[in-house]
């Protein structure tokens, strides 16, 4: 079969469907805490009650023609009263734009964290998008605001999703420098220094080389080494093994800590047993420890090397997974 037939079939489908896009939009969404200036790392709400101001811009970037938006929405903010101020369908001329604003009041840190939990990811950040829908497509632009961290920059009751939070003067995690999985994924030199201090038995994965460590860090938890879909339980165990690897490296390279070591011991016991245990809690706990010292400088004399993600990803090989082909 035959190129002529293929081309003809393609032409029929595409021709019948019509031209893909005479519409071209960009959008912009900005958030600012009222009374505070813009920040490089996005707004962080630390004082309450707080008012957040959202600014939206929808622009037609088609070079020659009008673009028509059939619907403009911000789904996560609609329950809080957001409505785009222009009726749809909205025709915007060449090079023109429409703007709108929306204000959201947050009464307390608890209200901020409750809102942050509605975006589909359990953390202290609220990620939302403006959607501009047009014929045969849509444009989205996202923005984030962050809630204060309990007992770090605001006083609040512990959020439900954080079982490790304890009320009080809480420094609940290891002091001192630490780095997370992202750091070790892209800094081969640092990871290599960790592996030079010995292999790791992570139960469901045995890591004996830099390449295998990169394999554990760069593989998606969702699929196994053969491309088969992992169950949610298996994906969680994979994530736990990954976080445990990072914690081991933090302990080896940047100093040991009793609280972090205790969490690591529990994680390794779980990984080396056939029981799943409370893997989700353990993943969260290890992540918290691995993130805790991100702002601390690395020990003097420690050379992490340059960040080389493309090369690091190219080196990755699957670690040995006992009991699996």
């Amino acid at each position, binding site marked *: 079969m035959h190129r002529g037939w293929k081309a003809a079939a393609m032409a029929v489908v595409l021709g019948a469907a019509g031209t893909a896009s005479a519409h071209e939009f960009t959008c912009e969404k900005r958030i600012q805490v009222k009374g505070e200036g813009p920040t490089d790392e996005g707004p962080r709400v630390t004082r309450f009650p707080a008012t957040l101001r959202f600014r939206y811009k929808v622009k037609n970037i088609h070079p020659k023609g009008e673009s028509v938006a059939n619907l403009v929405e911000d789904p996560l903010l609609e329950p809080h009263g957001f409505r785009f101020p222009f009726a749809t369908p909205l025709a915007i001329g060449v090079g023109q734009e429409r703007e709108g604003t929306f204000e959201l009041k947050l009464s307390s840190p608890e209200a901020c964290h409750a809102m942050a939990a509605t975006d589909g990811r359990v953390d202290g950040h609220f990620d939302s998008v403006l959607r501009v829908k047009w014929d045969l497509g849509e444009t989205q632009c996202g923005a984030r605001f962050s809630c204060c961290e309990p007992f770090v920059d605001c006083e609040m009751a512990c959020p439900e999703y954080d079982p490790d939070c304890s009320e009080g003067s809480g420094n609940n995690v290891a002091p001192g420098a630490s780095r997370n999985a992202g750091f070790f994924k892209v800094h081969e030199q640092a990871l290599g220094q960790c592996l030079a201090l010995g292999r790791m038995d992570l139960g469901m994965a045995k890591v004996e080389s830099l390449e295998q460590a990169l394999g554990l860090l760069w593989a998606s938890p969702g699929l196994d080494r053969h491309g088969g879909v992992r169950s949610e339980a298996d994906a969680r165990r994979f994530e736990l093994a990954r976080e445990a690897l990072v914690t081991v490296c933090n302990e080896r390279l940047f100093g040991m800590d009793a609280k972090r070591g205790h969490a690591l011991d529990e994680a390794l016991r779980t990984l080396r047993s056939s029981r799943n245990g409370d893997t989700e809690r353990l993943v969260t706990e290890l992540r918290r420890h691995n993130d805790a010292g991100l702002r601390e400088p690395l020990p003097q004399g420690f050379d992490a090397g340059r960040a080389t993600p*493309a090369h690091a*990803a190219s080196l990755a090989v699957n670690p040995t997974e006992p009991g699996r082909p």
Partner: protein
Amino acid sequence: MKKLMLSALGAAVLCLAGCGEARPEATGPRPDFPEDVQGQRFELRLKGVNNPGYTSALVQVRRVTVTTSDGQALPSRLKTRQALELTHPEHSHLVGRFVVPEGVEKVSVEVELDDFGGYEGASGGGVIDTRVAPLRFEAPVTYLAERGHAVVHLDLGQSLQAQGEAKLLLPSLDVRY
């Protein structure tokens, strides 16, 4: 009748257009879905656009979920295990496949990214923090049937926002069919 023809031809184009990535199930290692799963089969793809000069921008997908408007899960299959390089302008990565039964007019697609990726450019490299809410959009089945897929165009210039030495991925994207 025209819609059915379009759907059938769309399914044919699905393979014609993407055969380099989408191997026919008959010759692949194992089928994506059991044989008794009925419905139209579509692909979800991801590509990077508007690259401001990155030599590498790697992200990973953890999960793809497709549901009907009232939340019923539809058969879907993650198809990518490795990091996706988004700096190749003509490359549209196969992320997942899903099946939509007859009678469903619109689906909700959710793409959950893994925690971290990486970037490199002339001024250095670092982590892409992808610990963000899932990418979400709704796709009318008539749109999907045009070419058998939805393609997420991730704007690298707008989406990667500086956060110290890292970049936070707050998506600016188009969904095209």
